[in-house]
């Protein structure tokens, strides 16, 4: 390939541990893709104009390479390509290829399936950047703005990670799919993102924290199953992404912590649950946001019983959460499992072959994980002496995908007629009034160390910097 385009100094611009400088194939693919990515970032990335932001950049997979902080202009962020350490002895842990050495190339037989899995995962990464594009303008503090941008650049890097796989292993078809990842846009009428949940705008910071708590956690579980993949480059890519994803969930968890803490303070100060008038977010409203984001995220796990998931498992493409720690034969050909079901107006279970119950299995791992956040927030409430609890709604509540789609089930799990649902749903899910109230609180606070009134300040800063550090510089 000769081209008039100036050559990119790959190792300098793109931190990597995949020998980019020595790989003509990758270079050629990235030469074309990288400018398109930068255009996309300019059009669809954070809309707030900043000079530079105190960001962490991954420059290596080791501990040191991981802790590289500096103020950088966002468009000069060095998105890197990293795979976790290579284990030459790694073997496929499950399915019909169990025990065979993992694949370093895409087996042609599974090209289409693997490509699909990577494209679907890859599509969610830039989607969340698009969804959160305007949030910077209403950041409750510079600390929060910085966290938002950190999440955004890392989601951008996750896109790079998936594009790397497509470019390095899927030939021309992979390059075309990589282009499509930039051509689809969240909320676009013509070419929306693949998964419905990623086409909703994230309109306010409460939604952002809920998203990073609940929806990024779905990402964690998807990545966790892909980390088990027999296709080693995918496995290693996902393992590294999981570390970054943990930070996103930290942003969500502590974000909701701080909202709850502030609400508790206001309740104590004003001796009322109705803290809206005092510029806070009432607990009932927080509960509604939990209800919404949790159930939308449950939908992302797909149908309770899934032949796709079974095929992926048998083929060795996508395992279970912590596959290797499980004590069974890792093939499941003769096992049975239970899946949630909704029959004749009753919430019940169906017994199905275990292979068909893998989505349900993963969803349940996820649900258990979500509970830890609820415990945390309730501890905050208890400490503040407030006699109220936040809860996770029933798994059948407000579902659009799977066995409960179309059913009317209360957060407590009671099946009710549609009329009753219509009459009561405003008690359970955010209403226009709720959303308007939350939006009305969203005013930017750009002074270092200052914080908006609806949220408590963080307990510590980033990378041992103080909370009032100037995390973001403006022009």
């Amino acid at each position, binding site marked *: 390939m000769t081209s008039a385009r100036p050559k990119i100094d790959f190792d300098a611009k793109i931190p990597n541990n995949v020998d980019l400088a020595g790989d003509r194939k990758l270079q050629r693919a990235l030469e074309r893709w990288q400018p398109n990515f930068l255009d996309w970032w300019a059009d669809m990335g954070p809309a707030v104009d900043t000079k530079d932001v105190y960001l962490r950049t991954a420059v290596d997979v080791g501990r040191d390479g991981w802790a590289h902080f500096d103020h950088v202009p966002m468009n000069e962020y060095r998105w890197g390509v990293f795979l976790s350490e290579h284990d030459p002895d790694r073997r496929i842990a499950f399915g019909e290829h169990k025990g065979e050495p993992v694949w370093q190339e895409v087996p042609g*037989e599974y090209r289409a399936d693997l490509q699909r899995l990577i494209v679907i995962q890859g599509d969610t990464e830039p989607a969340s950047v698009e969804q959160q594009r305007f949030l910077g303008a209403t950041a409750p503090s510079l600390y929060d703005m910085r966290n938002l941008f950190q999440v955004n650049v890392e989601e951008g890097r996750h896109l790079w990670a998936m594009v790397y796989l497509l470019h390095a292993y899927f030939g*021309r078809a992979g390059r075309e799919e990589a282009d499509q990842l930039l051509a689809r846009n969240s909320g676009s009428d013509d070419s929306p993102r693949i998964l419905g949940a990623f086409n909703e705008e994230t309109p306010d910071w409460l939604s952002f924290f809920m998203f990073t708590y609940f929806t990024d956690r779905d990402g964690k579980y998807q990545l966790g199953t892909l980390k088990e993949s027999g296709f080693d480059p995918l496995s290693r890519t996902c393992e590294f992404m999981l570390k970054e994803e943990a930070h996103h969930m930290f942003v969500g968890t502590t974000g909701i912590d701080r909202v709850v803490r502030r609400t508790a303070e206001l309740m104590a100060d004003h001796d009322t649950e109705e803290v809206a008038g005092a510029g806070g977010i009432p607990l009932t409203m927080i509960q509604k946001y939990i209800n919404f984001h949790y159930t939308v995220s449950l939908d992302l796990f797909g149908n309770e019983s899934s032949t796709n998931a079974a095929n992926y498992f048998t083929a060795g493409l996508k395992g279970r959460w912590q596959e290797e720690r499980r004590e069974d034969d890792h093939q499941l050909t003769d096992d049975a499992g239970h899946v949630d079901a909704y029959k004749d107006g009753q919430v019940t279970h169906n017994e199905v072959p275990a292979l068909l119950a893998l989505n349900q299995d993963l969803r349940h791992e996820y649900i258990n994980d979500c509970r830890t956040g609820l415990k945390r927030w309730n501890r905050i409430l208890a400490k503040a002496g407030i006699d109220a609890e936040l809860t996770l709604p029933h798994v059948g509540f407000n579902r659009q995908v799977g066995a409960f789609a179309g059913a009317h089930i209360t957060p407590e799990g009671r099946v009710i007629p549609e009329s009753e649902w219509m009459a009561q749903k405003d008690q359970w899910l955010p209403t226009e009034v709720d959303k308007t109230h939350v939006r009305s609180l969203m005013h930017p606070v750009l002074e270092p160390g200052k914080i908006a009134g609806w949220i408590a300040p963080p307990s510590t800063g980033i990378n041992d910097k103080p909370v009032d550090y100037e995390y973001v510089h403006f022009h």
Partner: protein
Amino acid sequence: MTVLEEPVNDVAADTAESARSEAVPHVDFDTGPERYRHWRFTVDGPTAWVYLDVAEDGGIVPGYELKLNSYDLGVDIELYDLTQRLRFEHPQVRSVVLTSGKDTNFCAGANIRMLAGSSHPWKVNFCKFTNETRNGIEDMTDAGQTWIAALNGTAAGGGYEMALACDRILLVDDRSSAVSLPEVPLLGVLPGTGGLTRVIDKRRVRKDRADVFATRSEGFGGRKAVEWKLVDEAVPRREWDRVVAERAAEAAGASTRPADAQGISLPPLQRTEADGALTYDHVRVTLDREARTATVVVAVPEMTDDPAALHDQGAAHPLLAIVRELDDAILRLRTNELEIGTWLLLTEGSTEHALAADRLLAGHQDDWLVAETTRYLRRVLKRLDVTSRSLIALIEPGSCFAGPFLELALACDRQYMLEGTFEEDEDATLPSGAAAEEPAVVVVTDAQFGTFPMGNGLTRLGSRFYGDDGEGGALETIRARRGEELTGGDADDLGLVTDAPDDIDWTDEIRILLEERASLSPDALTGMEANHRFVGPETMETRIFGRLTAWQNWIFIRPNASGPEGALRKYGTGRKADFDQKRV
């Protein structure tokens, strides 16, 4: 095809089947007149007399006796060889009389015990080869060697189908000899080597009469057979020899073949074989059993476009040698390597050499040997068209897909052409092993525009761009670029190749393609490919290879034919088949 023969012993048939499915017999297509066990022929002036005289104990595999002049694959391999010898070694022959060397009957068709005891692939391969030989006989008639069936006794099933391939059918009128297609009433299968099709398409028998005929096991003889157009003449015994000789002389008289043509001899092919890999002088086949692929490399050496060289060198001439070797390689792979599901076709040599072959063929069609070589290549290409394997052409630097050799690529299901050259050593693994510094090119010539029609009557380009033949259409655009050396980019733009990856993509694209292909259902691929290859108009040939064969192969696997209670297995046991009566 098929037959009236003695009872099938169920136990023997079962044993034969299980034994056969374990070990597919290795089939060899080498033979020659001195080795024939089932045929004799004499050449008398412009007429060749061909006698079917099957050796009962000469079956190609054990387990049955070839009674009543019934045949199996071995008998047909000899017939194919015989047609080739008449074409090349006896070019002065203008008419061919096909008759029986037995006193009692002409031919009872394909051997029923062989069929009942054969695995499905064996039956299918056998029928396909038989069909190709029948088509070759019709092709000879078109080329001035007119075949006349002289049925000196009953011709049943495949025996009558053999006669149907001839231009004219004479039946001895002795009040007992008849022609018949007893497959449906007696065996629960079809007269599947062209019988059903040729009766209505070629002989124009009315469909209701064809229905009566094909369900009447004893068939028809004498005047009725003539009246229904099943035969051309019913000849009384006493006039038989005279009339047959007259008809042979008439046919010879109508031919324009040169009387003084000097034949060339077809010596045995030089071939070495090791674990399925075949190496000829110009064609090399290697197998990757794990990947289930065969790589077929056709190396085109230097040659001149002078027909005198073809006459001088005969079978040793590179072009004729390549065609023979390719024919043999296709037949062997097809019959002996059932699990090699994908064939990669490559060429190697200078484009200039390939174009010399093109000029030789294009410029000298009035030379009988050039014409015969062209026809041979045409049939070999048609063999590829009906081969139930995924065919993929890899067009790499050092290849010579030009003129007639470009047809090899166009016969494939897909064509991949390397754009540019292999830049780095580590990538430079040409399957052909050739070192090449110049980018690959292909050259379109007149060979793409009529010399090598497919079974559907269209050229391979015409099939590829079916309907796009108007002004400014793809065919016209390509035609305008005849003789040009087209690069990967050009070929891609013109639609001559599926894709033209560069060296960075090449290895991965091809590897993934092949692995992906190997993971698909072989049956679905066979069906899909056969459907895609034959676009557009139907001909008698496509109806035989498509409709008739597909129905026959379906019936073959149905319990009503091949199940333990099926007609094929119950025939001759004295017991009736027990049919599943549902019509599907």
